[in-house]
């Protein structure tokens, strides 16, 4: 598996620049997830506050606003846990290049949610991330400098 990890550079070397982008993004998510984990993100209703603050001005569709007010805000601890879990999953997946495609789609989902519940200050950032996640999913960015190459070589298919 480790041989495949490095061998991938030889066979799918054209993906190498994208792999660096993937690892960088993974590192970014890891840093932010650790910050949240060590801080009070899970114990104080920061995310509920954020939603209550921005939802009235959000461009989110009405069904999302209703869902957020009736389900997400009262269960903010669960939402915070899921967001943090997804951030850790994206971080690990991108850094080691494992199940990058489906995880990138989760990243898209996370970015869309954050776009709906965040203020205009972070709108551009989430839009950029959204585009990057889509590209990583599209090209299968785990195939170069990642463990996905090992599985791709043996199984092929859409998952790698």
């Amino acid at each position, binding site marked *: 598996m480790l041989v495949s990890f490095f061998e991938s550079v030889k066979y799918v070397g054209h993906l190498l620049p994208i792999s660096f982008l993937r690892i960088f993004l993974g590192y970014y998510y890891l840093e932010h997830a650790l910050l949240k*984990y060590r801080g009070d993100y899970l114990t104080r209703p920061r995310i509920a*506050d954020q939603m209550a603050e921005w939802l009235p001005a959000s461009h989110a569709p009405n069904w999302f606003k209703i869902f957020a007010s009736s389900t997400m805000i009262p269960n903010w601890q669960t939402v915070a846990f899921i967001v943090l879990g997804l951030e850790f999953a994206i971080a690990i997946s991108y850094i080691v290049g494992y199940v990058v495609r489906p995880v990138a789609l989760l990243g898209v989902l996370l970015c869309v949610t954050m776009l709906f519940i965040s203020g205009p200050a972070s709108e551009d950032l989430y839009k950029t991330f959204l585009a990057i996640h889509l590209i990583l999913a599209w090209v299968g960015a785990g195939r170069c400098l990642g463990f996905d190459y090992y599985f791709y070589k043996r199984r092929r298919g859409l998952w790698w």
Partner: protein
Amino acid sequence: MKHFVLFIAVVFLTLFLAVLNRTDNAAPSSSLPTVRVFGYASFTGRWGPGPLLKDLFEKTCKCKVEFIEGSDSGILLQRLKIEGESLGADVVVGLDQFDLSKATAEQPWRKLSLGQLDVYDAVRPALANSYFVPYDWGALTFVARRGELVHMPGSLDDLLAPELAKKIALQDPRTSSPGMQFLYWVIRTKGEEEGFRYLQKLMSQIHSFSPTWSTAYGLFTNKQTKLVYSYVTSPLYHETEEKKKDYLALPFTEALPVQFEFVGIPDFCRHCDLAEQFVNLMLSPEGQKIIMEKNYMFPVMKGVMENTPFAPLMNVKTLQQVEILSATEVDRLLRRWTEIRRGELN
């Protein structure tokens, strides 16, 4: 698929175990009752009066005080409505007069029995409600930096001057209490129809409608705007804390609106007696002094503000009547405001 599901499951399980382990370690060993005070960030935060009131209260109450933080007073009610009892608040701090009808309609509250309060005459009308008691108040106006504007605005119409185009920071009345105060001020001063016509013209002068007072004030202090809607006591804050005399609260020909901040005890309180004691502390001379000095608002009780820099600031022309608008009236005004705002954005 199998790999993906397994990977996600492992990540979440590890996080769950880590959180569980951390929570166990952090579990409080004390068996003292905890009074939970729900308030806006600048009250509960490090720089606000909250921590000092907490220390003062914990000295005598044989209990612990814990703050639940909401970012702005306008957001308190939204969270209270959405989270209700699960919020676990014993005391709610920071509702203003526009929130009271809505708060009473959406939530049962405990009657407060505080006896005769020796308050300023200006505050007396705000005591009419038996579920909420005001703990501070302030007049609102526009704040500018000295020497930055050629003509300092002295009336609402002056705000339409070309010099101020996109240079005024206002708050969104849907989420911020000062934002609602501004809307009310315009309507009260100019009448509803004329007021909304004025607001339509004013839209092009506004840099942005911030969701909270602190965001709008931040735009002003970062010099992104030349005017901000704030309190007459805001310049005193800069003078006392930062030794800066650059800021100026503008006198307007129109009488200024007054904001009262209220405290109340929700009916679902768990430590209701302690909550009432906390309210009493907020109205005591020590509590009022802390609130005045940290919140930069006028105290409601007499005998605290005298011989302080706050006293002369109280002599501004303010709207005489404290009007408690009904929830439907507030909603109707906000709907009209939203229509104008939407029209402006389109």
